[in-house]
């Protein structure tokens, strides 16, 4: 009696393998564990704290690990009025964040200077940093910040992670 078995069947791995693109995998991992650098500069920071607390719970979107060290962060949430005195400090903290990194301009002040049309306030953090997501509101409600975070997740999902950010890996093949 000859025992037969399906040629391409391996019971150890079948059902545990998913075939996907490398880009999609990397993006999936990145977007679901964004570590924010909370750049809280004014009242928007209070709403950001509320977003992190139990009622709104930013952990549902994988971004609960607020790191006050730029070297461990992926996304900088600029929450509040950026004065000229603070502006270069914000830039320096952004420069210390490792690539890949994203920026959320939270609220009217960080997006455009808001109501502070004055000698002391930078008219939007996009004068200094490449902003990915602008959130309107003065200050935005926690739902708005979560919406912005989801928008950023969609944006990350569409990135060409390997082609744009890991060129050295492509040269191997």
């Amino acid at each position: 009696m000859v025992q037969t078995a399906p040629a391409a069947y391996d019971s150890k791995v079948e059902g545990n393998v998913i075939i996907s693109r490398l880009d999609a995998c990397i993006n999936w991992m990145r977007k679901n564990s964004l570590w924010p650098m909370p750049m809280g500069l004014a009242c928007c920071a209070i709403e950001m704290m509320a977003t992190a607390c139990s009622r709104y719970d930013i952990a549902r979107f994988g971004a609960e690990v607020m790191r006050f060290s730029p070297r461990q962060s992926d996304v900088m949430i600029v929450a509040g009025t950026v004065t000229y005195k603070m502006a270069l400090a914000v830039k320096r903290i952004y420069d210390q964040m490792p690539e890949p990194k994203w920026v959320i301009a939270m609220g009217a002040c960080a997006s455009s200077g808001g109501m502070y049309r004055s000698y002391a306030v930078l008219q939007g953090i996009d004068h200094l940093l490449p902003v990915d997501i602008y959130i309107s509101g003065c200050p935005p409600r926690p739902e708005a910040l979560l919406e912005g975070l989801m928008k950023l997740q969609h944006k990350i999902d569409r990135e060409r992670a390997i082609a744009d950010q890991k060129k050295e890996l492509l040269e191997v093949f």
Partner: protein
Amino acid sequence: MTHADVLAKLQDRFQILAKTEFRGELTPEVPLAEIETVCRACKQELGFNLLLDVSSVDNFGEEPRFEVVYELYSLEQKLHLRLKTKVSEDHLEVPTVSTVWQTADWHEREVYDMMGIRFSGHPDLRRILMWEGYPYFPLRKDFPLEGKPSQMPDVAFSEVAPLAGGPFVTSPTDSGTKDREPRARGLD
């Protein structure tokens, strides 16, 4: 003690250039040279043990141009006193009162930062709100609200802010509050 007693005692010893009484507030003006001794007497002899604020006024176009205002309060007698002294633009120097009330230290730094009035004898006269090296004094009347450009490499920079247009600027119009209020408007 009442305001009349305070004024009488001050007039006995010091020169009072002018005085205003308005809604229960007494505001004597004293010569610049005497401001420190007046303040010391107010604290030690008249009991004004709390300095509420030191501020400054720019009467642009007048001479003397600047005015420094001291808000004094006596906690025991629950009495308020406002001292004023005028400062000429040619000699922008006021004796410090931080030796009388320690809290004057930061108040005087703010006056220096915003108005450019120097305080002689101040222990640490640096800017307190703007950065060291900022070339202007922003609360002066001849300084525009939108600011002026400045550049200090690696420290800070400033640019002129747009004062018209945008969602956060009131639009003057007769057609009613709805159109006047700052709000997001389409580009038209």
